[in-house]
């Protein structure tokens, strides 16, 4: 067996969860072909030490990223969800930080892992992943208010790389804030009940100020403008796209005022760079 063949074989064996019986389709190969026994442990037991350690690390990494998702689906379903996700999406990055990046999209196509409130679960996963991305994304020097005021309709605008925009169908932002708060509190204060989540259209900006991640609800118009700018549209293109896509109620003056308010807010929060 060459080094490459041996490593393929061993990684294949390690990718089977330690409690594989619970996972349909999981297959285990014998470790005895390439590992030797010791006086105290046989080859399979020796491999299992690695398997337990690998899976514990991976499971913990995903669980740490999605405490609000766990609150929605429940602990037992969450554990099964993590294993199913890790089997479907083995890590393709050198850093554990990226391990969960495909989970929101995966959950969106696997409703049986989300339970009765699957759509809320998907929204929570999207929001918690946005938090991770915003936490350590780059930050650029923001444009000054004077510079923003001088921008023309065709000026290309950049938004902060740490800004994430989400349109949600449930008020999972209330839950995420509460769960993150609860996790940071001492155990004696962590018994507070979590907020109820309900179906509700929410446009949300996830952004960073002084190293901390914040959530800000936006109105639909502001969301659309910012979303278009994030897709590298010029200001004129973004406004046109917004006005063309119905419904946007209100007079031309209302729209101009809404645009000015959006730019003022984005400038004030340092989102335009």
């Amino acid at each position, binding site marked *: 067996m060459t080094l490459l063949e041996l490593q393929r074989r061993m990684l294949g064996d390690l990718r089977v969860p330690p409690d594989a019986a619970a996972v349909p389709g999981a297959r285990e190969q014998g470790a005895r072909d390439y590992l030797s026994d010791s006086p105290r442990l046989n080859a399979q037991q020796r491999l299992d030490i690695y398997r337990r350690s690998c899976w514990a690390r991976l499971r913990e990494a995903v669980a740490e990223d999605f405490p609000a998702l766990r609150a929605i689906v429940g602990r037992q379903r969450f554990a099964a969800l993590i294993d199913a996700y890790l089997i479907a999406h083995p890590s393709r990055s050198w850093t554990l930080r990226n391990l969960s990046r495909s989970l929101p999209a995966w959950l969106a196509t696997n409703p049986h892992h989300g339970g009765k409130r699957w759509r809320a679960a998907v929204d929570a996963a999207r929001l918690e992943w946005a938090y991770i991305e915003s936490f350590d994304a780059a930050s650029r020097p923001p444009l000054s208010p004077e510079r923003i005021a001088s921008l023309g309709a065709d000026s290309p605008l950049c938004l902060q790389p*740490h800004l994430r925009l989400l349109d949600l169908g449930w008020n999972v932002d209330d839950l995420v804030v509460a769960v993150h708060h609860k996790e940071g509190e001492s155990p004696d204060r962590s018994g507070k009940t979590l907020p109820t989540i309900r179906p509700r259209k929410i446009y949300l900006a996830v952004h960073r100020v002084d190293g901390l991640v914040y959530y800000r609800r936006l109105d639909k118009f502001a969301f659309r403008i910012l979303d278009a700018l994030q897709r590298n549209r010029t200001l004129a293109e973004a406004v046109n796209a917004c006005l063309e896509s119905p419904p946007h109620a209100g007079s031309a003056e209302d729209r101009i005022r809404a645009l000015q308010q959006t730019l003022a807010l984005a400038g004030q929060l340092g989102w335009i760079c």
Partner: protein
Amino acid sequence: MPANRFNGYTDYGVGVGLRIPHYDHILSRNPTVDWFEIISENYMVDGGLPLRMLDRILEQYRVVQHGVSLYFGSADRLNRDHLRRLKSLTRRTNTPWLSDHLCWGSVDGTYSHDLLPLPYTWEAVRKTAANIREAQDFLELPIAVENVSSYAEFHASEMTEWQFLNEVVEAADCGILLDVNNIYVSSWNHGFDPFDYVNAVAPERVAQIHIAGHSKFEKYRLDTHDHPVLDPVWRLYQRAIARCGRTATLLEWDDRIPGFDEVHDEALKANQYLPAAIPESSAATVEMNHDAA
């Protein structure tokens, strides 16, 4: 060795691993610490709090980078994105040397995120050394490779672990990060004498030493970094220092992390085994006499 080309000719003493629960203590009380070791991957990001905290630490302390995912022993080629980010971080930290593990952990672009043991074969020597040389050339820094704790052995092995280590570092022309706790754990798991290992390592290539605690199970020892250093590990450390001389030493404590003072006090126990640093004037005399000889 006190200072050699594998640790950038530095003379670092006893340091501790920089861990998030200690940030507040370190930044508010500025304890006297010779140096900190950081896990490179924790700071290979584009921005945010991790880099902000690192910059504050760098204003006051010397930092050495230690990695966990280069996987020199993987049959895959090294990941270029990883190397580029790593190089960018080394420019931020000015680390005099950089370490990672003598292990594998990925194949065909899929990552285990574990430090998996290598078969001690000549093929693995060649592949691992080639990867280390590539990283060393790209990063333009000396690299020290760390022996890992292991729980399994391969039928394919053609030599002992310490022979393998020596062959790799010779072929790669790199340094060694000698982890005496890992030697102890592996010796218990595989039934060899840990002193045979320490006595065989090329002392002139040792850039740094790791000490740590481990956990005892009925049938094996596990490298958990969640305890103080155990006596048999201190004895190995003493032997390593006797062979290598005063060497940069780092305590790893990664789980169930106590307060900073407790971790630092545990690390400073290493000082009782370290010979006093040679004053600069004496060192110069020794060097001149050596040259004359």
